[in-house]
């Protein structure tokens, strides 16, 4: 398929403004020239069957026909091939929370241990199509890892900007890939603002600025995988962490596309959003019934979700309202409890965002907002090994003893 620029974006036919529906050509642009609203990818999908998808690689590229990428995206060797992560049935956690059927979609399995490898893979493909020599991003840490690693693998330069107060585990795991890692004296929203200015100043492909329409589409693969791994059906309820709100809206978009393409049966589903109290602009607007999101100054241990001015906040609220879901928020203490609960019941050590999501799940049930008798999928988007600081004051040695059997017998009862 071709488009006006003769660039291969697969089934994508153009961009369209989510607000005023003004069309735009496929290219390195992310906001509408008329109203500054966000541009989204528009498609003309051909016939797609479950069998075609199932015959594809065990990565996000099995869904290439549903993404703005060339049909041969899977055959590009210089790619980290993320995705197709475990969907773990979680009996123990379900029992603890009084639930009937619970699954954890565990995106620690990705190459840099977070869901960001998905969005970066799609953005890198668009960046290559558009001829960018340097790939860049504003990040709270996970995206920085994903961009630095993918750029190393693809052999392109990367410039990664993060707040300089991030967890050491996220700084080191970006720097190791040989990226240009720029620490900013400020919070994520400061970094993001600076990156918008740099994008106008340098010829960089910013995955979450001028490549954002393509990047964001990568999150749909989480929705596709959930449906495929459940045996080509949709769950009743999904709980998703909210930073910018983009991921939540793309899970919804994925489900809607699968229904429209006849790949799953249509059914009602409910989407729940999870924030930390120390950065809860979307939950606040949802609770108060606002259609705009009031920016905040974040202060939470869940740094990966600490976006005070979330670009897709209003759209996340629309999805939660339309699907009869909800958006909640939990304290830092609850986040730590959530991390420990998931680890102790399911053997999954989540980063702070996973703690936010599990703690919100518990709270939604306690408040009667989420039905524990319905099948529920919870997203764990990152790895606890990157945010050890968050719980290192809460867990540690049970006891330390001299190397003698006597001391062990005294310290550890039968």
């Amino acid at each position, binding site marked *: 398929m071709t488009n006006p620029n003769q660039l291969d974006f697969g089934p994508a036919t153009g961009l369209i403004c989510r607000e005023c529906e003004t069309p735009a050509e496929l290219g390195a642009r*992310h906001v509408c020239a008329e109203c500054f*609203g966000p541009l989204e990818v528009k498609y003309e999908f051909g016939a797609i069957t479950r069998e075609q998808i199932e015959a594809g690689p065990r990565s996000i590229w099995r869904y290439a026909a549903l993404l703005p990428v060339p049909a041969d995206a899977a055959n590009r060797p210089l790619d980290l091939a993320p995705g197709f992560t475990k969907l773990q049935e979680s009996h123990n956690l379900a029992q603890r929370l009084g639930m009937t059927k619970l699954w954890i979609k565990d995106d620690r399995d990705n190459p840099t241990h977070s869901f960001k490898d998905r969005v970066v893979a799609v953005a890198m493909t668009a960046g290559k199509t558009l001829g960018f020599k340097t790939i860049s991003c504003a990040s709270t840490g996970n995206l920085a890892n994903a961009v630095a690693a993918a750029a190393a693998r693809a052999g392109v330069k990367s410039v990664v900007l993060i707040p300089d107060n991030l967890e050491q585990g996220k700084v080191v795991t970006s720097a190791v890939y040989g990226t240009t890692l720029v620490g900013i004296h400020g919070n994520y929203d400061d970094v993001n*603002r600076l990156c*918008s200015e740099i994008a106008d100043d340098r010829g960089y492909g910013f995955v979450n600025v001028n490549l954002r329409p393509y990047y964001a589409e990568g999150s749909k693969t989480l929705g596709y995988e959930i449906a495929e791994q459940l045996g080509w059906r949709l769950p009743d309820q999904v709980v998703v962490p909210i930073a910018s709100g983009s991921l939540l809206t793309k899970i919804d978009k994925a489900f809607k596309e699968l229904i429209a393409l006849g790949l799953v049966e249509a059914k009602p589903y409910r989407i729940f959003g999870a924030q930390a109290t120390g950065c809860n602009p979307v939950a606040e607007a949802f609770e108060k019934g606002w259609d705009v999101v009031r*920016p905040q100054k974040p202060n939470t241990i869940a740094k990966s979700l600490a976006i005070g001015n979330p*670009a897709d906040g209003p759209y996340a609220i629309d999805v939660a309202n339309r699907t009869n879901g909800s958006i909640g928020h939990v304290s830092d203490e609850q986040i730590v409890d959530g991390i420990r609960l998931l680890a102790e019941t399911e053997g999954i050590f989540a980063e702070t965002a996973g703690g936010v999501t599990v703690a919100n799940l518990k709270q939604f049930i306690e408040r009667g907002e989420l039905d524990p008798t319905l099948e529920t999928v919870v997203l764990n988007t990152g790895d606890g090994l990157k945010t050890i600081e968050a719980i290192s004051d809460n867990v540690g040695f049970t006891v330390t003893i001299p190397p003698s059997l006597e001391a062990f017998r005294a310290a550890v009862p039968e």
Partner: protein
Amino acid sequence: MSVIVRVPTILRSYTGGEAEIAGEGATLNDVLHDLETRHAGLLTRVLDDNGKIRRFVNVYVNEEDVRFEQGLETPTPSGTAVSILAAVAGG
């Protein structure tokens, strides 16, 4: 009493392609109206029909989002740096 205003690529059709333009005024509102006298059309791209900053536009005065300051009434003393940006980015 001069301030420097950085404008995004998407608005440079109003500034003859210039990335930075000079303005005058005691507040952000005054500066924006001053710019309009030389860069006609710019104002309505930044402000909506009610004279408020558009939903998808962020304006920063000395690196601070004016929504955390006094909005359009944020003071802009001489030497202030103003930056206009599309709000939709990141995440």
